[in-house]
């Protein structure tokens, strides 16, 4: 009896032919049945060692143990006499008077996405963040509840900020800073690309070098970090919330327009083959992965596509080419 086949049978992975082999083997002799019984029993008792519920309850223990760790280091102090403790206190006081108070140890939380996944994050103040591909969001959990709620963003995200007038919410991107009280807005802040910020609800303040502007709903600002050139434009609401709704929204977009949106959405290089034709496409496509989206687009807008390791090549269908000529 091949051991692999037997273990596949135990894990209930075998196909019909393999199952037949095992059954035949079992019928062959008494001792074979004993072996299988012993193995199955051993598997059960191994699995009894831990399950998902144990993992959840043990996690709480581990979490407290982790957080106690720095406290443990301080235990030896308890052994010193009260006098020594007071002396230590005096020393600390003297140190404090000459130096500025030691800052709270930062506890940075970094949430990042890869080229394949997106994330929906809820921050400690219940602000929701939809993090797009290849993006990262960092905040300091130790000071997040202080006078300002600060986060740092690299990449693209949609924020739905919980309203709290006493604690402004601030997003720091490589080139701009956005301050809000309680709104929802979209940010596209990638290195070496124009920064785009668009508002869905409420009012936001955007500052950057040579820029300080307030934006209202359905307004969009594009800021070039190199030339400091800014343009404001109107943008429809469902274009702003597209990221939150997981939908790519196109409005009268030609091929370069579609390519630009795909490039921004997936943070991948899009190459257009041949001369761009006069296509215009309006509609929205749900993001179920780049292949599904390109498949849908190729059907709807008459585009042919090809995905390579780091880029996507778009071209028009040969028949629509002929039509346009």
């Amino acid at each position, binding site marked *: *009896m*091949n*051991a*692999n086949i*037997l*273990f596949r*049978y*135990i*894990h*209930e992975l075998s196909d019909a032919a393999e*199952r037949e082999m095992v*059954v035949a083997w*079992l019928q062959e002799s*008494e*001792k*074979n*049945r*004993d*072996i*299988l*019984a*012993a*193995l*199955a*029993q*051993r*598997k*059960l*008792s*191994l*699995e*009894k*060692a*831990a*399950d*998902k519920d*144990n*993992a959840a309850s*043990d*996690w709480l*223990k*581990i979490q407290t*143990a*982790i957080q106690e*760790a720095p406290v443990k280091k301080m235990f030896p102090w308890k052994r010193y006499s009260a006098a020594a403790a007071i002396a230590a206190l005096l020393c600390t006081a003297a140190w404090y008077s000459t130096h500025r108070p030691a800052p709270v140890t930062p506890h*940075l*939380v*970094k*949430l*990042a996405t*890869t080229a394949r996944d997106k994330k929906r994050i809820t921050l400690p103040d219940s602000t929701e963040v939809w993090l797009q591909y290849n993006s990262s969001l960092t905040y300091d959990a130790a000071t997040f509840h202080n006078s300002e709620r600060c986060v740092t963003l690299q990449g693209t995200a949609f924020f739905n900020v919980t309203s709290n007038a006493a604690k402004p919410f601030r997003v720091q991107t490589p080139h701009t800073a956005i301050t809000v009280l309680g709104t929802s807005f979209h940010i596209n802040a990638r290195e070496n690309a124009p920064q785009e910020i668009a508002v869905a609800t409420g009012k936001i303040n955007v500052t950057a070098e040579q820029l300080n502007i307030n934006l209202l709903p359905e307004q969009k600002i594009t800021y070039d970090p190199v030339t400091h050139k800014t343009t404001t434009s109107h943008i429809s609401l469902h274009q702003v919330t597209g990221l939150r709704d997981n939908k790519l929204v196109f409005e009268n977009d030609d091929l370069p327009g579609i390519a630009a949106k795909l490039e921004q959405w997936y943070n991948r290089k899009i190459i257009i083959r041949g001369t761009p034709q006069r296509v215009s496409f309006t509609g929205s496509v749900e993001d179920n992965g780049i292949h599904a989206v390109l498949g849908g687009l190729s059907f709807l807008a008459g585009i042919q596509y090809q995905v390579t390791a780091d880029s996507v090549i778009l071209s028009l269908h040969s028949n629509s080419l002929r039509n346009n000529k």
Partner: protein
Amino acid sequence: MQPVSELNGAEWNQQTFKVLYDEYYVLVSRYCYAFTGDYELARDIAAELFCDLWRQRANIRVNTNIKNYLLVAARRRCKKHKEKLPLTVTIANDQLESISHHTPDTHMVQKESKAALQQLLLRLDPVKKEIIDLKLLGLTNKEIAHLLHVTPKKVEYQLNTAIRVLQDEIKTMQLTAQDCEIGLMIGSLLLLIPS
């Protein structure tokens, strides 16, 4: 396919650590049980391992893969515990406590046969036993080979030999007539389950 954050301990944060924990805590605990034969101790060792992992994350670089890294660490810890107190006896006793879902009459006889069946696996040498345990935990031959520093071929050979050894063992075990009956019962029960 491992995300970079898992390979470089210094980059872990609580979220990524939790993902790691969720993925592997159960497996590590079960593997510890395979060594110690004590449910509580197994989970204690596993929990301790994850605690230390977090505390020393700044110094951790995993060059191979994280699953293998964790299992190797678990193995080392269990070995250390085993040196402190021999647990071979408790394995058999512990098995008997597993709850049976059958009727009270069969419960008694099953207890006996279960002990007999358990004895069966204990007759294997430690290497074969560990390979079987790992296989029952769902590891592939390649993963086992990596963990034990042998070739996948050797793992397969050991598994096949283990089955042959078991067949020979049963012959020499001189089971009583009663034991045979029970073995038959369990065998037919097991046969019914997958179909």
